[in-house]
């Protein structure tokens, strides 16, 4: 019988096993618990924004519905499909890594990257459209009208609201050019404005387009913060994929060692789950009121 030392020296060591772990299984389990702890804090991190959404939507539901109806439902649905397909290709990448199939793995990672980039591209198109309409909060501040002229457009906008002339509307603050208060009017006529909403939308006892605009602006703040943070996660995910692609191409991942693929997969699926909730909450919440753009 050999001594313990020599027994250890001859002991088979899988190439990917770090010395602090007993075996590959334990290493794998530790990695996935660590990853899940990270995802748990990510859930709480996004949870803060969901809480903000909950608070303001509960207070100003019609302003949220109006803002939501203005988002493009086709781009939104398309992006949801793109992200779900990317989740499938990511799951398949993990599957092929588990089987140690190098080329299939590389192909799935490339597909995932293409789909992720497509998602970001669509997001960019949507953001650009909103920017051009002047309804991205803050970004219009550089277009602030000079102090002397600031008053005039507001006055005419108020007068021409019911008139036939199409006068260019300017928010006196120079940003967030939103004029449409029709949904609030509709809700007022139907009698479902709550007292909190009335306090938010009314000036001197009547519905005020400017006050309504400011509440829609809250929706767009939340929209850009949430989808922006989500897009940032997508960009980080693409970075991870690029790294994975390189390592997978080198043939690093085998049936014995594929933790990095699986952990990146967990991250990618998490980002997909966030979108699964963002999509109905941001794009679809007021569609049944009709009158979308």
């Amino acid at each position, binding site marked *: 019988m050999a001594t313990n030392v020599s027994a250890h020296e001859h002991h088979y060591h899988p190439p990917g096993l770090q010395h602090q772990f007993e075996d590959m299984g334990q290493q794998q389990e530790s990695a996935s618990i660590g990853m899940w702890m990270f995802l748990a804090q990510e859930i709480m991190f996004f949870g803060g924004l969901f809480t903000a959404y909950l608070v303001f939507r509960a207070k100003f539901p019609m302003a949220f519905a109006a803002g939501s109806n203005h988002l493009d439902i086709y781009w939104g649905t398309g992006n949801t499909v793109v992200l*779900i397909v990317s989740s499938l290709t990511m799951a398949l990448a993990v599957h092929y890594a588990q089987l140690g199939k190098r080329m299939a793995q590389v192909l799935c990672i490339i597909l995932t990257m293409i789909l992720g980039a497509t998602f970001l591209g669509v997001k960019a198109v949507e953001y650009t459209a909103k920017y051009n309409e002047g309804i991205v909060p803050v970004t219009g501040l550089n277009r602030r009208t000079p102090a002397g002229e600031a008053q005039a457009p507001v006055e005419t906008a108020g007068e021409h609201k019911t008139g036939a002339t199409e006068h260019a509307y300017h928010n006196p603050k120079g940003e967030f050019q939103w004029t449409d208060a029709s949904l609030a009017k509709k809700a007022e006529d139907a009698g479902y404005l709550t007292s909190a909403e009335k306090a938010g939308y009314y000036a001197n006892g009547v519905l005020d387009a400017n006050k309504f605009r400011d509440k829609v602006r809250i929706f767009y703040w939340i929209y850009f913060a949430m989808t922006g943070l989500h897009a940032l996660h997508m960009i980080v995910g693409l970075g991870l994929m690029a790294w994975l692609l390189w390592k997978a191409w080198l043939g690093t991942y085998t049936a014995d060692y594929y933790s990095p693929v699986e952990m990146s997969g967990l991250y990618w699926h998490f980002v997909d789950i966030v979108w699964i909730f963002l999509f109905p909450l941001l794009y679809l919440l007021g569609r*049944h009121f009709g009158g979308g753009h």
Partner: protein
Amino acid sequence: MADHDKHDEHGHGEHHIVPIPLYLMVFGILMVGTILTVGAAVVDLDHIFPGANTLVALLIATIKMTFVMLYFMHVKYSPKLIGLSIVGTFLFLAIMFAFTMQDYLTRSIGNFSN
């Protein structure tokens, strides 16, 4: 000393490989869920009770999330500890929502409103 050369049957090692047809099935469920979400959103369910549209949307989203977690993220084949962590996280999320809303929703009650 325990023999480390052999695969430990009671250890952590069992890697479950999810078959591709199961992945495709979950994918199908997610696509159907997406179509249902959009379909349900344009129908006025709020006449049944206020907030029905939102409830249906969140219900579908939760079902979709459950499938992604169980199969794509392998929670079904993972140690119970991971499942417990997830449930715990959502519990804390629920606490955050509930404690925030019990404040905001009751602000118009009493002498504090304006």
